[in-house]
C-alpha cells in the first residue's frame, strides 16, 4: 500500500514537472507572431541612400503569388527602424527582412558613413548571411534597374563573380568584423550600370572607418583577392613585353606594346593586342609577414599560384626552356609589380583592407590604431614575391 501510494505520488509529481516545464518553455519563447509565407512581402534586395539629409530605402520585392511582377517601394525617414515601418505602410503585405540577400549602398550614403544601418542590421536576428555592395550611383537607380530581372538576379550575379571571376568574397560577417575590428578597413564590391545598361561588378570600394574612401578597378580587385582570399580563381590580363625589349626594361611594368616581327607587316591585323593574354588562376597560397627592424617595417608578401594559360603569344614557343623561363619570369614580375603598385595606392589613400594593422598588432606590445595609421603605415615598405606554376596550357595543335 505504502509503495503504491508513493508511486502514485511520484507519478503525479512527474506529470506536474512536465507541465511546468512546458509552460515555462512556452512563456520563455513568447508568442512568436505567425508569419505565413505567402502572406509576406519577402524582399531580397534593398537599396539605401541619403536624400536631403534623410535616409531613404528602396525595396524591391518580388510578387511570387501572381504574375511574378516585382514591385519597388521607396520611403524616407530619419532612422532605420522608422524606415522599416514606413515601408509597411506602402505595401499590401508586411515587408519582412528575413530573406534579404543583398544590400545596395548608394555612393553618397557610403561617403557619409554607413554605421547606422549596419548597426541596426546587426541587431536583427532574422537577417542571415547577406552581402553588401556599393553602387557608384544612387542605390535607387540600381534597384529600379533590377525590376524586370529575376528576383535573385543581383545575388546570383555577385555569387558567380566571387566564385569564378575574381571578386573578393564579402558578406555580413567579414563586414562586421572589419567594422568593429581595429587594424583593418572595410572593403565591399562595387556595382554599376555600364554604357549598355547592364549591371556589372566593377571593382572594390574601400572604406576608411565607416566612410567610403577609395574605389579600385576589377583588375586591382583580383590582385587583392589573390593576396587575401583562399579562393583564387579568376582571370588576369597580362601584356607580355616582347623578347627583344626585355633587356634593360625589366623593371618597367608598363610595357609599351611592340609588334612582333613576324606579324609586323601584315595589314589585316586581328583585333586586340596579340601580346596580351589571359592567365587563369587555378589555386595557390599566399603569405603575408611583417619584418621589423628598428623603426622600419617591411611587409613581405609571398604568392604561389598555379595557373592555366590560354592563348599565349605565338612568338613564345613554350617547348623551349628559355622561352618558358622568359614567360614565367616576366609574368611573375608583372604580377608582383602590379601588386606592389596596388599596395602603394592603398597606402597613399590611408586605407588598409589587407589588415596590416592586425598583423602589426599581433607582433607588437603596444597598439594604438590612430598612431599606427598616422605614423607607421605610411612609412611601411613592401616586398612582393610571386611564384607561378604553369599547370595547363590548353589543348595543343
Amino acid at each position: 500500500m505504502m509503495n503504491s501510494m508513493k508511486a502514485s505520488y511520484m507519478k503525479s509529481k512527474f506529470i506536474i514537472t512536465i507541465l511546468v516545464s512546458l509552460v515555462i518553455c512556452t512563456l520563455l519563447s513568447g508568442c512568436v507572431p505567425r508569419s505565413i509565407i505567402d502572406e509576406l512581402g519577402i524582399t531580397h534586395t534593398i537599396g539605401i541612400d541619403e536624400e536631403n539629409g534623410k535616409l531613404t530605402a528602396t525595396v524591391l520585392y518580388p510578387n511570387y503569388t501572381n504574375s511574378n511582377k516585382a514591385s519597388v517601394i521607396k520611403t524616407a525617414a530619419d532612422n532605420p527602424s522608422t524606415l522599416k515601418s514606413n515601408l509597411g505602410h506602402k505595401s499590401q503585405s508586411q515587408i519582412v527582412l528575413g530573406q534579404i540577400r543583398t544590400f545596395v549602398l548608394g555612393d553618397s550614403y557610403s561617403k557619409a558613413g554607413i554605421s547606422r544601418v549596419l548597426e541596426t542590421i546587426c541587431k536583427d536576428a532574422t537577417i542571415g548571411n547577406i552581402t553588401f555592395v556599393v553602387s557608384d550611383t544612387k542605390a535607387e537607380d540600381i534597384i529600379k534597374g533590377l525590376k524586370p530581372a529575376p528576383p535573385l538576379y543581383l545575388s546570383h550575379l555577385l555569387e558567380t563573380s566571387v566564385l569564378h571571376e575574381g571578386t573578393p568574397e564579402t558578406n555580413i560577417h567579414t563586414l562586421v568584423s572589419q567594422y568593429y575590428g581595429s587594424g583593418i578597413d572595410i572593403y565591399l564590391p562595387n556595382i554599376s550600370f555600364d554604357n549598355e545598361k547592364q549591371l556589372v561588378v566593377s571593382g572594390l570600394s574601400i572604406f576608411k572607418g565607416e566612410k567610403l574612401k577609395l574605389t579600385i578597378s576589377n583588375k586591382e580587385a583580383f590582385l587583392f583577392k589573390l593576396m587575401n582570399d583562399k579562393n583564387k580563381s579568376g582571370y588576369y590580363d597580362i601584356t607580355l613585353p616582347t623578347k627583344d625589349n626585355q633587356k634593360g626594361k625589366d623593371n618597367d611594368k608598363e610595357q609599351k606594346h611592340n609588334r612582333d616581327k613576324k606579324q609586323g607587316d601584315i595589314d589585316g591585323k586581328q583585333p586586340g593586342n596579340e601580346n596580351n593574354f589571359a592567365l587563369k588562376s587555378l589555386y595557390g597560397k599566399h603569405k603575408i609577414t611583417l619584418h621589423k627592424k628598428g623603426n622600419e617595417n617591411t611587409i613581405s608578401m609571398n604568392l604561389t599560384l598555379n595557373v592555366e594559360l590560354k592563348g599565349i603569344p605565338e612568338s613564345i614557343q613554350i617547348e623551349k626552356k628559355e622561352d618558358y623561363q622568359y614567360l614565367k619570369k616576366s609574368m611573375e614580375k608583372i604580377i608582383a609589380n602590379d601588386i606592389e603598385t596596388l599596395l602603394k595606392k592603398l597606402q597613399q589613400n590611408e586605407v588598409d583592407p589587407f589588415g596590416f594593422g592586425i598583423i602589426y598588432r599581433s607582433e607588437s606590445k603596444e597598439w594604438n590604431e590612430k598612431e599606427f595609421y598616422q605614423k607607421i603605415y605610411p612609412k611601411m615598405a613592401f616586398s612582393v614575391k610571386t611564384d607561378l606554376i604553369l599547370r595547363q596550357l590548353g589543348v595543343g595543335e
Partner: protein
Amino acid sequence: MELGGHIMIDQNTMTFEELITLAKKSRDFSQIENRVNDTKVLISYFSTLVNHELMQTSFLSNLNVKDENLKIKSLKDLQELLPLSEMSITNDLSEIENKLYKGQLIVQIENETSEFLLININSCQTGLRQFNDSENEFSVVGPKMGFVEDIDTNMNLLRRKINSPKLVIEEILIGSLSKTRVMIVYMDGITSEQHINTVRERLADIDIDIVWDTSLLDQVIRDNQNTPFPLYLSTERIDRITYTIVSGQIAIFSDGTPYAISGPSTLFDFFISPEDYYLNWVLGSFFRFIRIMGVFFSIFTSSIYVAVLTFHYEVIPKDLLGPLIESRANVPFPPILEVIFLELTIELLREAGARLPTKVGQTLGIVGGIVIGQAAVAAALTSNILLIIVALSALSSFTTPIFVMSNTIRVLRFVFIVLASFLGGLGIILGFVFLLAHLFRLKSFGTPYLVPLYPFRRNALADSFIRSSFKFINKRPEYLRPRDSLKYGVKKKKKTKGDLNDE
C-alpha cells in the same frame, strides 16, 4: 502449471459426475457405451473436437476384439490394446476437464470409478490454413515461410530451424476461458536466467479470459503500459524469430496466432530486416540506413514544413522560396490545416487499403492517393510541394519492417505536426526532447530500450545503424546478458601473395 485462482476452487469442488452433467448441456457432447469381451466401456467426448476418421480406424475398430481369452481388467489392458501414442491414465479431475475440452476421449471401464483413460485423437488441423507464406513481412531474398495459427506446427517449424538440444520450449496455460497454450522458447545455456525468470513470472501473473493473440500478452506483460512504442518484437517470420532466439532473447508463442513476440528488444531491432543478413554487408547496411533515415523523414518532414511555412520563412533556401510560395499561392488555409487535411487523407487511404483483401488493394489505395492528391492540388486545397512531402513521408513509413513500429511512427507524426503549428521549430525540438526522454526511460524486460546508444555500448554498434560484416557480428549483444556470448568463431584468412599466374 498455474491457472487462475477461482478456477482452481471450482475444480477442487467438482466431481466427475458434475463435470459430465455440465458437458451434457452441450449438444456436441456424446457418450458411447461399448463392450469389450463382457467389459463395459464408457466413452465420453465432444464430437466436434475429435478426429472421426482416427476414431473409427484406430479406436473403435480395435475395441471389437475377436480373441475370447482377452480379458479387460484394468485401463492398462485397454491401453495395450490400442495402437495410439497419446494416452494417459489419470484421476486428476482438472486435467480431465481440460483435455475433454481440447478434444480428447475419456474412457471409463466397469469397476474402475476413480481412474480414467484419456486418449488424444483431437482434430487439431481442422480449420487451419494449409499455407504459411509470411504475407505481411515480405522479403525478396531468403525464405518466405512464416508461422501459422497452430502452435504445434510452429514448434515443428522452429525445431527444424534450430536443430539443437539447447532449444527449450516451456508450456503454460493462460486464459480462464480459452486455456490457451502459450510457449516460452529460449536457448538453454545462452539466454540469461534472469530474463527467463522475468518472463515466467510475468506470464504466470496474467489473469485474463481469452488470449486472442500474442499482442495481447505483449500489452499485459510490457514494462510500460502507456508508451506507443512496441517493447517486444512481434513477427510472423520464422527466420526473424530464430535470429532473436539464438541472439539470446526469449520468444513467446501462443496457440491460435501466427505472431510470436520476443524480448528484450531494443529500438534498433524494429528496423532490422532479415534481408540485411541475406545481402552482402555493404548492401545490407545501405538499406538499413535508408530505413532508419526513412523513419526520421517520416516523423519530421510534415512538421518541419508546417514550422517553416508558418514561422521561419528566413531559413528557406533562396532558390526554393519561389516554388514554395507559388505552389501555396492559391491555397486558402494556413499550412497546419493543409497538412492535417492531406495527412488524414493518406491515413484514410491506408486504413481503407488495409481492409481491401489483397495486395492489389493496397496498390490501388496508393494510386487512388495520387489521384486524390492531384485533384486536391487542382482544387487549390493543398500545395504541390506538400503533396510530395506527405506522400514521401507515408512511403518512408512503410519501409519499417515491423508493422507495429510503423504504426507508432504514423501516430508520432501527428503529435509533431500539432506541436509545430503552435511553437514552430521550438515545438519540434520540444517534442523531440520529450520523445528522447521517453525512449531513455523505456525498458523491455528490464533492459534499456535504446541500448547501443543509451547506455552507450560500443560493441553492439556493429549491428545497429549499419550491418557490419559477419566477421564483426559473431558475438551476442552484451546487453542481453547471454551466458555464452560467442555465436560462432571467425577464422582468420591466410593472406596469400598473388602469383602472376593467378591473374
